[in-house]
């Protein structure tokens, strides 16, 4: 028996850092045998589904966007779509285009924050982004420039980066100005070269991503028209599509005692959502520059290395910027109109939405009574769908790390979880690594 195989190992990372929310990685190895390897979500549960009961249809997006400060625009859009489906509200083409811009703004902001501020320190071998200000000022300034632009992007379309105010059922209560859109287009065009610089930097460091592979199912929206983000059918890499209203056939939520976040599964033990899932299902619909960046990393579907989710995020940043430039051209080309919200007839009904937000597919399901009061809600957040896949990935990765020094094992496990960009605070329902000696 080798030395490593006899090893006693007890890892407990109490509250994984550089993620949103509280989660722990727990590992116990005795006589070289893995006794325990789990991913605990210990965030305080927040009970949004119960809280929104009794609130009015026009308040739902305002409340449910508070589930997450990082993807509050995505929650707003999912919420609006569910309410609009329930009350039979049709929105204009311009509203649809502006909402797609809002989603791209958030995708860019969230992805660059994760890759630039939270993952880059791992690749550079430091504990946070702070030391990079001294060691790599030019690179950090490029990241900050993109991040700031993404915030200006959100402000321009939504009024605010976090918990947007302009988006309501039926449309917008305030519009960006033509000059602002033109200036934004200029900024986005300049950001393309900044993003390619970040891509080249990460590509130089990409050997730090472990050559890990575990076959799993990928779930993401699919559309015949575009790289699906705002709407589409729920699709699986194992084949098949489902209407958003059939989401329960895909998610199959269940509870586990060590996690305040629910788990999901479909065809296999677990499935993955997020940038890599979207890339794996829809890469042929990416914009040309985004496809070129994927080529730089030799990223091809179907990729089963969860660490490559970080690379898929960079690819999607480029896609979001390019597609946004195209959308702005369409909005300006057709002439920006200050449209009124269409008349809304309140009625009883149920509405389900599925929207791709930075961390994956998000479902909102609302039921209203005839006064437009919410009498039932179900919300399935992307990170919650990933927990089970993270758990199975940890189980698959750990044996390959066992011969290494404890700090390296810990870092490898942490990097794996961080690759998912988990947003545990969404938990409404999430991480510790624990080693014992």
């Amino acid at each position: 028996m080798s030395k490593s195989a006899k090893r006693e190992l007890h890892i407990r990372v109490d509250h994984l850092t550089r993620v949103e929310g509280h989660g722990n990685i727990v590992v116990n190895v005795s006589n070289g045998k893995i006794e325990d390897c789990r991913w605990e979500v210990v965030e305080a549960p927040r009970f949004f589904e119960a809280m929104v009961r009794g609130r009015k249809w026009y308040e739902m997006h305002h409340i449910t966007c508070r589930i997450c400060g990082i993807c509050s625009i995505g929650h707003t859009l999912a919420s609006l779509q569910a309410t609009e489906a329930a009350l039979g509200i049709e929105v204009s083409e311009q509203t649809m285009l502006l909402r797609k811009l809002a989603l791209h703004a958030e995708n860019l902001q969230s992805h660059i924050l994760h890759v630039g501020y939270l993952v880059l320190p791992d690749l550079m071998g430091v504990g946070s982004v702070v030391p990079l200000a001294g060691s790599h000022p030019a690179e950090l300034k490029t990241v900050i420039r993109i991040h700031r632009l993404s915030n200006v992007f959100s402000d321009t379309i939504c009024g605010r980066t976090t918990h947007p105010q302009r988006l309501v059922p039926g449309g917008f209560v305030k519009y960006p100005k033509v000059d602002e859109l033109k200036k934004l287009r200029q900024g986005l065009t300049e950001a393309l070269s900044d993003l390619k610089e970040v891509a080249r930097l990460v590509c130089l460091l990409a050997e730090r991503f472990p050559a890990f592979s575990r076959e799993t199912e990928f779930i993401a929206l699919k559309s015949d028209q575009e790289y699906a983000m705002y709407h589409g059918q729920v699709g699986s890499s194992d084949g098949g599509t489902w209407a958003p209203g059939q989401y329960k056939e895909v998610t199959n939520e269940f509870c586990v005692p060590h996690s305040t976040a629910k788990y999901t599964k479909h065809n296999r033990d677990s499935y993955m959502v997020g940038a890599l899932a979207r890339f794996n299902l829809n890469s042929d619909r990416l914009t040309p520059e985004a496809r070129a960046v994927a080529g730089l990393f030799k990223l091809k579907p179907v990729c089963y290395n969860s660490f490559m989710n970080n690379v898929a995020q960079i690819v999607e940043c480029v896609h979001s910027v390019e597609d946004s430039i195209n959308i702005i051209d369409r909005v300006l080309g057709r002439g920006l109109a200050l449209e009124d919200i269409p008349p809304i007839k309140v009625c009883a009904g149920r509405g389900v939405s599925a929207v791709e937000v930075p961390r994956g597919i998000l479902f909102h399901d609302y039921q209203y009574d005839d006064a437009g009061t919410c009498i039932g809600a179900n919300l399935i957040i992307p990170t919650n769908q990933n927990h089970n896949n993270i758990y199975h990935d940890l189980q698959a990765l750990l044996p390959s790390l066992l011969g290494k020094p404890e700090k390296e094992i810990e870092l490898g496990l942490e990097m794996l979880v961080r690759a998912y960009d988990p947003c545990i605070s969404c938990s409404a329902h999430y991480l510790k690594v624990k080693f014992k000696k």
Partner: protein
Amino acid sequence: MSKPRVAIFDFAGCEGDQLQIVNLEEAVLDVLGQVEIVTWREAMKEQSDHYDIALVEGSITRKSDEERIKAIRGKAGILVAIGACATIGGINCMKNFQDEKFVRRYVYGDKAHWYNTYAARPVSAVVSVDANVHGCPINREEFVQVLKALLQGKKPFIPNYPMCVDCKKAGNVCVLLKGQFCMGPVTRAGCGACCITEGAYCSGCRGLVDDPNMDAARALLGRFGISAGEALGQIRLYDGYREEAR
């Protein structure tokens, strides 16, 4: 002289306020130049138990969180609550008005007993708080202003007059006159009436002013056809922990 040591913590909340700190971009480097961040789970791996200023986001929703916030209070010379969940309890308090057993069962079904919770409350309901940065989310400039005042040993200026003052200054048409609902007349100012300026109405995320004149507010809202019940429902949206909402 060594720089003040700052630690950032979060409880039940959406972490949107920490995101607002990240969103200071280059300005964050100016602020960081004046202090040393020693603990920030969301952004860095290093952590320390020695800090002078604790910035706390989120509300207290479990008995186990009480021990954690008390330990933080014990170590921090100055404790600042940031964001509506921490300052006034925020939207987490909406569940305080429903039966707790029902709330847990509604979300977790027959596994409800695995998950503990109690009536959500602001940080000040458990430990003393030295300063509040109000809002959902916090306003970046206000956060910097409060932190600067504290670093200079001054008491930060937190407005205690209604949002209508900010709204008039911003040059907005009164939303009540437009026939919409608004919490502005009794809500604490300080955000520049940002929601109204962006075409929405004030939902009261900064909480009520101290000693709000509720009779006058009821009369005013009544004049615009808004019932006391509707107004109470709105107070319960963010400020459900306070006496007037119960």
